[in-house]
């Protein structure tokens, strides 16, 4: 099966500082890919590069980028995909809806814009969409202003907007930040359900590994502007190849079981820092001299891919 979104060697510089240093990501049709990493790893920037929504003063380059078979390197192709082919679920739902327009107006505007519906058809469809994101009183929400709704409710509306153009992929950028923990679980389950109901694919950006375990089919772990480890969720959780991903998973697990939080020594490098050949080497418990001197090879084992000289499995074969 060929990938829906295939991204190779994505590099982004913002005001001369390297933010992404060759990101490879692919999303298969129908799957949900979790993109995890610490703040500053470049998760959001990857998503924004796909939609050409990077901040002013950014320089982007791809080795290759395609979406549903279409070349996605031209800026115009990426801009035209917004809303139509790729839906987007934002980080801060309450701030992401326009404060001076009614929620229903914003949603039916999106439907008219993305699907060319008439005024009345758009309203009917908007109410259906609100219902499909499990809003029990769509009529009331339709007439509400964003400030009259809770964060969770606003996020449901944002998801409805993301669905409005019947996209092939929905990118959710930390969709549960700032929501109550109980609401977070609901929103994630909703996101997972809608992806399969609407026959689309999902890309879920988060720093919360628990979230990934619940809804994602595959995981891409990012570190310092690069994807260092990808694999099925089950594999990554069982035994991640990359020491960083491995540590991340075990920390999340120890937090879940109520154990004392352990941390990875050192800190995440800032953009512009001098990086070793493997950016994680200074913090890595398995690092040896080759990690500092040579680019880590791509290893392929147990359904995972990782960039590492010393992956956590004996059978790992260098490709």
């Amino acid at each position: 099966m060929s990938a829906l979104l295939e991204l190779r060697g994505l590099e982004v510089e913002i005001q001369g500082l390297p933010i992404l240093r060759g990101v490879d990501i692919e999303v298969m049709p129908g799957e949900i890919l979790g993109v995890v990493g610490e703040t500053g790893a470049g998760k959001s920037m990857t998503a924004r590069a796909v939609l050409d929504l990077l901040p002013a003063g950014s320089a982007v380059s791809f080795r290759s980028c395609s979406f549903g078979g279409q070349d996605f390197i031209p800026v115009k192709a990426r801009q035209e995909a917004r809303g139509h082919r790729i839906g987007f679920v934002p980080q801060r739902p309450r701030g992401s809806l326009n404060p001076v327009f009614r929620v229903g107006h914003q949603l039916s505007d999106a439907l008219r814009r993305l699907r060319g519906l008439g005024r009345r058809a758009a309203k009917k469809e908007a109410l259906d969409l609100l219902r499909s994101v499990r809003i029990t009183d769509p009529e009331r929400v339709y007439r509400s202003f964003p400030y009259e709704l809770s964060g969770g409710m606003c996020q449901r509306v944002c998801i409805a907007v993301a669905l409005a153009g019947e996209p092939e992929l929905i990118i959710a950028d930390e969709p549960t930040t700032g929501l109550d923990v109980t609401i977070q679980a609901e929103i994630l389950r909703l996101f997972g359900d809608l992806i399969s109901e609407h026959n689309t694919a999902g890309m879920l950006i988060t720093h919360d590994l628990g979230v990934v375990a619940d809804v994602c089919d595959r995981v891409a772990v990012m570190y310092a502007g690069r994807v260092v480890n990808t694999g099925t969720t089950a594999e990554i959780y069982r035994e991640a190849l990359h020491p960083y991903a491995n540590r991340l998973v075990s920390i999340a697990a120890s937090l879940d079981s109520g154990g004392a939080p352990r941390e990875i020594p050192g800190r995440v490098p800032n953009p512009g820092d001098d990086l070793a050949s493997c950016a994680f080497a200074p913090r890595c418990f398995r690092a040896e001299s080759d990690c500092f001197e040579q680019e880590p090879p791509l290893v392929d084992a147990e359904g995972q891919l990782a960039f590492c000289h010393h992956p956590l499995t004996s059978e790992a074969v260098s490709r």
Partner: protein
Amino acid sequence: MSPYVIRRLIALIPILIGVTLLAFLVSRALPGDPARLYAGIQASDAQVEAIRERLGLNQPLYQQYCVYMIGQTCLGESGGGGLIRGDLGESIRTGFSVADDITARLPATIEMVGAGMLFALAAALPLGVWAAVRRGKLIDRFCRFISTLGVAVPDFWLALILMLIFFVFLGWLPGPVGRLDIKAIPPDGPTGFYTIDSLIRGQWETFRNAVSHLILPMIAIGFPAVAPILRLTRNATLSVLNSDYIAFGRASGLRGPPLYLKYVLRNALPGAVTMTGLIVGYMIGGAVLVERVFSWPGVGLYAFASLQANDYPAIQGFVLLSAVTYMLVFLVVDLVQSVIDPRVRLK
């Protein structure tokens, strides 16, 4: 009318009483003697004294103010008059009731100031948004130039320059003869605005005539207002463009004019609306000089002539009118704010 509006209107009354006192004292403090101006240079001292007595100007100030406010009742005589009965007094210069004088001239001023305001908004709002979107580009620098120019150029001077260019040199627009050509007959309509009345009556020739006379005063009074509204709109737009909701709007496929003129502008508008209110007040002052330059028969010209004649009741009437207009404009501004942004609650 909503209780909020009624409360706001009631709150105006004490302020307006203060305004009348101030206007009364300030007009008395002006140099010059209305009785002497009224009597003419040839008049004897006795004649001037007689006129002074007839106008009630020989009475003590507190008594004059009392008569102005509550009429003849103040002197223990029967008879009406006084501000509380809506009587603004009689103009010393024209001999007519000040209220009638002002009512007759008000449409001309509203037409000019209104057109000027529309001109300013039509230029400043789109330019402000455009300049913010293309920040640092040519259009942004052009707008900064316009803003600086607008602050630096006084309206009456601009009026003279416009006249020099478009009437004297190019001959495209009529000279300073008022609202219509001298031979033209004013349209007979309900509003008193010649442009609207002639349209209602279907008098195309008169409409063309009225519009051609309106253009230069409109630009002269409107241009200085472009600068502050433009700058405010640009800055508000810049912060709106950085907002989460615009980022999400873009990610959902919003772009081009619908994005900027609907979703961005609506959020950037509140500051510009408040500024517009302030500017209307400034324009009433500006109208005095601009109307003078264009012989525009409005209240500004009336105020100008009244000032020269030390016409106390007329001056007071004009000051009161300005104050009322200013405060009503601010009430409208607050109402408009609540329409633009549902989070603004009026209480």
